[in-house]
């Protein structure tokens, strides 16, 4: 298979992938610290207490940001892993499509759940 030389690397996106991986990483640093603080509180909670904590605005706002940045960062990262280890073009493309769909599913399910709990 001939690949056009455009200087865009193995996924034809140039450096934008690299930048997004970094930007999401910077956003995730404080967001994951928040998660680590929140989890022990929620881990021992009953459903009623859980909902109560989700109704404090800072909780759903931080969780939605965490899900968006985290899942996008995850998608970008796993894509690099696929590009490094999978060499057949059809399998590679198939896995990338599966990864994109799975990421969208997780993002939609996670964000909708947070919004439902907070509403």
């Amino acid at each position, binding site marked *: 298979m001939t690949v056009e030389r455009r200087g865009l690397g193995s996924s034809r996106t140039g450096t934008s992938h690299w930048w997004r991986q970094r930007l999401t990483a910077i956003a995730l640093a404080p967001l994951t610290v928040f998660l680590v603080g929140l989890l022990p509180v929620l881990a021992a909670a009953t459903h009623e207490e859980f909902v109560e904590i989700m109704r404090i605005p800072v909780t759903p706002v931080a969780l939605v940001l965490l899900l968006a940045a985290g899942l996008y960062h*995850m998608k970008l990262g796993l894509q690099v892993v696929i590009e490094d280890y999978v060499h057949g073009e059809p399998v590679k493309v198939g896995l990338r499509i599966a990864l994109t769909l799975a990421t969208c599913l997780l993002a939609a399910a996670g964000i909708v759940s947070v919004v439902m*709990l907070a509403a």
Partner: protein
Amino acid sequence: MADMRERPLSPHLQIYRPQITSVLSIGHRATGIVLSLGAALLVLWLTAAAAGPDWFDIAQRCAGSWPGYALLFVFSVCLVYHLLNGVRHLFWDAGLGFELETVSRTGWAVVAGTVLLTAAIWLLGLAVAEGP
């Protein structure tokens, strides 16, 4: 292909002596993959909560079981490591900390930081979860 022999090769992993630099580098990838599973389970947990008290109780019982705690512990180690080493990556991206000695010093700092922070999280976390 006589000239092939003159070319530099990538390290042959089976015979290459593991070093702090190479081990931590593959560690970043390994923890990233484990955290991806953690992200999926986090979404599942939130979905269970949104589905109502019955589903949430099931999720809480899974998380509170011994295998659940073991998994949470693995996720916490991976997150702390990936976070600290990720910051190290970001400093490199800014062009800082590339001297060989510094690279290995910050590498050991990440290892020590991971042990200490994970221990602190669990000590504080268990105190919070047990409640007063």
